[in-house]
């Protein structure tokens, strides 16, 4: 605080008083940008995500039990020292299974959202930038996709093409295309109006260059935040598919584990068989949601314009 504050102590009491200033809000007319911190919650969430991804990636080399080996512990043993998460009804170690299940869940979640963003994002940008006929055609396709009942589409594709990892991931990806395209289009529309795009055209930039150099960096921000949020959704969606028996046949994901663990008898005798995968999914989805949201907010604020002169 500058010296002036010291000169008027009674003023400082008045100005700061006992009530803390409410919230940090940006006040454009004073030319100050309030930069919100990402916050401790974000870092916590990010830490979990890093942890689970690392654990899943390194699973084959971690000193944990073989998830498929039966009889590691007794049948349906409660969580204890030898089996941290207990065992399931086939005597398999739940801890190992939870970590191995993460592999499928995370891969499906990530690959599908990646597909969605790549295809949906591009379609949205093209549609938002070129407008006119191109926009109409693409928007129509997007509407159709949106209108199509997701589950039926999933059933169709998986039923026809098989229940392998790539197929399941692609199916979820296809379902993600439409909503992402809409967001991408809306964001592109907003930025395409801005004068820096006109300036680029005046300089002689091609449409391609404008989309890549001018629009993409701006559109990427909400898209990036959407990646995390989207992953959260696809992980849950995969769980839903698993419940319908539509998820990957070989191997197992959290969704599948939850299904297996939700058989009434298993649930009664050993709730941990379902609870741990549920817990893992819950925490992961929560972390992804929260981190995605904080990121979006953080980048949003950065753009607020400043006062004149």
């Amino acid at each position, binding site marked *: 605080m500058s010296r002036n504050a010291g000169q008027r102590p009674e003023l400082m009491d008045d100005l700061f008083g006992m009530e803390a200033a*409410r919230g940090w*809000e940006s006040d454009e007319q*004073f030319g100050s940008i309030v930069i919100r911190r990402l916050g401790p919650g974000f870092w916590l969430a990010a830490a979990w995500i890093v942890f689970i991804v690392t654990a899943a990636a390194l699973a084959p080399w971690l000193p944990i039990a073989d998830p498929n080996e039966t009889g590691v512990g007794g049948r349906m043993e409660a969580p204890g020292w030898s089996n941290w998460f207990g065992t399931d009804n086939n005597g398999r170690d739940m801890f190992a299974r939870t970590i191995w299940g993460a592999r499928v869940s995370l891969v499906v979640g990530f690959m599908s959202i990646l597909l969605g963003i790549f295809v949906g994002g591009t379609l949205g940008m093209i549609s938002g930038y070129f407008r006119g006929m191109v926009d109409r055609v693409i928007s129509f396709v997007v509407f159709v996709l949106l209108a199509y009942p997701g589950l039926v589409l999933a059933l169709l594709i998986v039923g026809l093409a098989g229940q392998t990892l790539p197929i399941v991931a692609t199916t979820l990806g296809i379902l993600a295309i439409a909503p992402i395209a809409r967001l991408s289009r809306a964001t592109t529309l907003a930025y395409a109006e801005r004068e820096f795009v006109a300036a680029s055209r005046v300089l002689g930039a091609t449409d391609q260059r404008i989309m890549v150099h001018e629009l993409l960096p701006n559109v990427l921000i909400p898209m990036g935040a959407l990646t995390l949020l989207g992953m959260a959704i696809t992980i849950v969606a995969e769980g839903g598919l698993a419940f319908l028996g539509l998820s990957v046949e070989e191997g197992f994901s959290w969704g599948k584990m939850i299904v297996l663990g939700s058989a009434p008898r298993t649930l009664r005798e050993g709730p941990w068989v379902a609870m741990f995968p549920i817990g893992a999914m819950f925490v992961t989805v929560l972390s992804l949601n929260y981190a995605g949201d904080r990121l979006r907010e953080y980048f949003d604020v950065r753009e607020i314009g400043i006062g004149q002169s």
Partner: protein
Amino acid sequence: MCAKSGLGKADMAAPLLSVSNLHVGFATEKGLVRAVDGVSFDLTEGQTLGIVGESGSGKSVTAKTLMNLLPSYARVGGSITFDGRDVRAMATEGERHFWGVAMTMVFQDPMTSLNPVKRVGEQIAESLRVHLKRTRSEAKDEAGDLLQQVGVPEPRKRLRQYPHELSGGLRQRVVIAMSLACSPRLLIADEPTTALDVTVQKHILDLLDELREERGMTMILITHDLGVVRGRADQIMVMYAGRTMEQADTATLFSQMRHPYTEALLETIPRIDMASHTRLIPIPGMPPELVDVPDGCLFSQRCRSCSDSCLTDQPPLEVCGPMHVCACHTPVGTEAGAAARAANREAGVTPAGLDMGTFTAVEESA
């Protein structure tokens, strides 16, 4: 009161509005933003005060403080008295029938003052019903009368229209009608014509003048354009970075300006009768950040008459003529000012590091 504002009281009538040592700060993450930093003025009934300043000068914040429109994270110090009543106390007590009744405001952008989904007549009538307890039909009639008074053609028809169906000029007239509904004694107009075309600007300003005379209203006209207040204000207060730089009645301000900022403003704005390519003297630099305000005069970094004391001591607002106050160590037209400027010219640079070469070309003798 005289000492604080510095303006001698020729007539001893108590002022209608008295603002004393007003401080408004906003607590932000960067620190305390001193939007208004010690502003005082008195306004006699029937007078028009013009407040001139750029963005960041604090003029709009002052208006909003008077109107109790500050956000919750604002901190206010000082006193505001209207007709003997303590305005800040009324604000804390939640007085409902003061603002919009005795004191009203017209904003820059009529579109944001008007509810886009409500008919125009309804919006005017609302004020009448809430504050003056008129019935629906009475309010409607009065609304029509008000529209007529502000020069809206076909007033009855307009009552039923939505804001987007009206042009910018008409919308502003509607907003003025709304503000006049309860016969206010003080009307604050914050850049009322900035968003309008020049032909419409004149009509709106003329309208405000007419209404003021007819109703004996007091007015505060806030603008960034010195030209606008020249013909329409009795007193002018020039603000910069939250502080008052100079205050005087209009004729005096233009004929004997004292503050280098006022002088610089006049030299930097092209006038319509100036020949093409008349060189404009720029004011270098930008208005200061209002956080962690430096010591000394806030204009010193951009001032031609800067002296060493300007960098360390904040100049107090002092009397420099009849009905004329100025906050400057080296005012224009005084010995101190002339000496400072001459010294700067010789050295080629001001104590603040400003290159005097920026001001070559046509420069009036200071």
